[in-house]
C-alpha cells in the first residue's frame, strides 16, 4: 500500500507526544492527497488508551510494540523495531518529530535504509519533479521544505529515488487537528521478540531526571520579547503572552523588564541572560541596549514595535512599527488570526 508512517513518541506522562499528534494531523492530509493510509508506530510500555489517543487524528493502523524495556526510549531497540517494520511494510513516507528522540533515531534509520532524510522541515507538500536531463517525471513526491543557512534561504528537498522519504519536523510547526472524533483503525500488536535483538539493550540507563516543561526560550523559533517600555502599557505582558502563544513561540524579556518584575529570569534575553537565534524576534517596547542586542542580533528576522523611531533596536530590525504596543499587538493578533483561518 505504500502508506505514510509516523513514529509516535511517548512522554514521561505515558501519553503520545504533541509533536507526534501534529505529525499525524499532517500525515492524514498528505495521505488524503495520495489516497493512502496513515500508520503510527508506537514503541513503549503499557501505554493506556492508545487507540483513543490517536485514532481521531485519522490513523488507520497502529503498529504497537509493547514491552517494559521499550520505555524510556533507547536508540537501538527502537531502531530495530522501526527499520524492520519499514522493511516489511514499505511506506513511501516516514515522519519523525525533530525532538531529542527523533533526531537521535531518524538519522540512524535513514543510514541503515540508505534513504534521504531532511531535518527540521517547516512545511511538507506533495508535488512532482521533472528530471529534464534524465527525461523522467516523478509524480507524488514529498516536498520537504526547510529554511537553510541560518534561515536566509528556504530550500525544497526531494528524494526522487529512495523510499521511504523521511523527514523530521519540530514541535509546533504543524497544526494538531482532530480528523474525525470517531475515526477507527486497527491495532497491529507486534511480537517484540521478533523485532529486537538482545544486543539492542547494551546501553545501561543509570539515572534520569526529566522535568515538566519548563521555560526554555533558547530553542524557540519565535520569540516575542517585552522591554521596559511595556511596563507603562496596561496588560502589556498579557498581550505579549497572547501573541507568543498564538505564533507557537516563547516570551522573552529584557533585563530591565525582568528587574521590574514583569517576567521570570529564565526569559531574559541578552548578554547576562540567554542568547537566542530564533527565526522571528518581535521586540515590543525594547530600546535595544547593546547588552540586549548581543543576545538576539542573530535572529533571522526582527520586528521592532516602538513609539520612538530612533530606538537603537530599530537599526537592526527588518521591520519597524512606529506605534504604541497597546495598539499594535492586538492588531497583529487579529490579522494573524484572519490570515491563518
Amino acid at each position, binding site marked *: 500500500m505504500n502508506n505514510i508512517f509516523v513514529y509516535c513518541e511517548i512522554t514521561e506522562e505515558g501519553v503520545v507526544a504533541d509533536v507526534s499528534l501534529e505529525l499525524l494531523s499532517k500525515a492524514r492530509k498528505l495521505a488524503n492527497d495520495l489516497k493512502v493510509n496513515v500508520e503510527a508506530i508506537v514503541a513503549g510500555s503499557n501505554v493506556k488508551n492508545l487507540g483513543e489517543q490517536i485514532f481521531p487524528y485519522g490513523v488507520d493502523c497502529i503498529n504497537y510494540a509493547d514491552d517494559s524495556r521499550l520505555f524510556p526510549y533507547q536508540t537501538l531497540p527502537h*531502531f530495530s523495531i522501526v527499520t524492520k517494520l519499514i522493511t516489511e511494510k514499505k511506506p513511501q513516507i516516514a515522519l519523525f518529530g525533530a525532538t531529542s528522540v527523533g*533526531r*537521535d533515531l531518524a*538519522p540512524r534509520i535513514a543510514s541503515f535504509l540508505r*534513504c534521504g532524510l531532511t531535518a527540521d522541515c517547516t512545511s511538507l507538500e506533495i508535488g512532482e519533479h521533472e528530471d529534464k536531463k534524465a527525461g523522467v517525471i516523478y509524480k507524488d513526491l514529498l516536498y520537504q521544505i526547510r529554511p537553510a543557512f541560518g534561515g536566509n*534561504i528556504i530550500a525544497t528537498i526531494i528524494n526522487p529515488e529512495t523510499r521511504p522519504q523521511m523527514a523530521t519536523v519540530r514541535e509546533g510547526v504543524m497544526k494538531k487537528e482532530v480528523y474525525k472524533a470517531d475515526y477507527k483503525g486497527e491495532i497491529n500488536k507486534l511480537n517484540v521478540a521478533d523485532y529486537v535483538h538482545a544486543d539492542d539493550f547494551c*546501553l545501561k540507563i*543509570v539515572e534520569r531526571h526529566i522535568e515538566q*516543561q519548563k521555560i526554555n526560550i533558547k530553542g524557540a523559533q519565535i520569540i516575542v520579547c517585552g522591554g521596559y517600555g511595556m511596563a507603562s502599557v496596561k496588560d502589556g505582558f498579557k498581550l505579549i503572552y497572547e501573541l507568543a502563544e498564538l505564533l507557537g513561540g516563547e516570551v522573552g524579556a529584557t533585563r530591565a523588564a525582568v528587574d521590574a518584575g514583569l517576567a521570570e529570569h529564565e526569559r531574559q534575553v541578552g548578554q547576562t541572560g540567554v542568547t537566542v537565534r530564533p527565526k522571528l524576534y518581535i521586540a515590543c517596547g525594547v530600546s535595544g541596549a547593546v547588552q540586549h542586542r548581543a543576545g538576539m542580533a542573530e535572529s533571522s528576522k526582527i520586528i521592532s514595535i516602538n513609539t520612538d523611531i530612533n530606538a537603537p533596536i530599530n537599526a537592526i530590525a527588518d521591520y519597524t512599527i512606529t506605534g504604541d504596543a497597546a495598539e499594535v499587538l492586538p492588531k497583529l493578533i487579529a490579522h494573524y488570526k484572519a490570515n491563518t483561518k
Partner: protein
Amino acid sequence: MSFKIVVLAKQVPDTRNVGKDAMKEDGTVNRAALPAIFNPEDLNALEMALEIKDKITDASISVITMGPARAAEIIRDSIYRGADNGIVVSDRKVAGSDTLATSYTISQAVRKLGKVDLVLCGRQAIDGDTAQVGPQVAEKLEIPQITYAEEVIGVSAQSIRIKRRLERGIEVVESAFPCLITVHGSAAACRFSNAKRVMKYKHAISASEAAEKGVDVSKLWDEKPYLKIEEWNADFIEADDSRLGLGGSPTKVKKIENVVLAQKESINLSPSDEDMDGLMKELIAAHIIG
C-alpha cells in the same frame, strides 16, 4: 593496549555572523564572504576527547575532517589544542554530499584507522543543523551511539558513563567501547592552544597546502614526520564511488528561494490595519510563521 579516540570535525562558514553580503544577487550563498571556522560543537567534542585522554593511559586522539584542502586549518588548530594527529579526507568525488554520503565517507575513513575505541563529534554543524552525521556514522560502523553528551561522569578503558542533555532534563547512560558520542554545546568549552604545541606544530602542512604554496616539504616530513597532515582520497579509504558525493546522495535540492525579506533594509510600518495585515501575510508566505 592503546586506546584510540577519533574526533570528527568540520570546518564551516560562520553562519552566526551572516552579514548583508552573505547572499549573492541570485540567492545563492556567497561562501567567500563568510569566515570559515571550527564548528563550535566539534570543539566541545575535542575537549571531551582531551578530558578522556587525560584519564586513560596510552590514549591517542586523531581528528578526521572531510572538506576541501583548506580544512587542514582545523586539523592544525586541533593539534595545537592537544590532538595527536589529523586527517583531511578530500576528494572531488565527495563534492555535493548530503548527510548520508558524508557519513559513509567518514565511516570509511574511521575504518581505515583500524581498531577505534571511541568516536566523538559535535551534535550538529552550524551550516546545516541537521544533527544527522553522528548517528549515521555510528550506524555505518555498527556501534552504539550516545547523543547530546554534556559531561563525562566516569570513564575507564572498558566503559564510559555520560550525562546527556535532553529537552527537559538529563539522563546518565553507561556504554562499553566501542561507541560513538555526539557532544552538546552545553558541554565544557575547548581548552586553548598550548604555546609549546603551537611552536612545535606551526609548520604542520598537508600535501595540497604545500603544493599551493609551491614548497617542497619532502625533506621536512622526513626529518619531522609529525609535521605531515595526512590527506586521504576516496580510493585510499576504499570507498564505493557510487555512494559518494552528489550521486551518492538520495536528497536533492529541488529549489532554493531567498527568504522574501532577506534583501530588504528596515521597512518602516505604521500601525494601520493595512500595514499589519500585509506584514502578517508576508511572514506567513515566507514560512516564518504559519
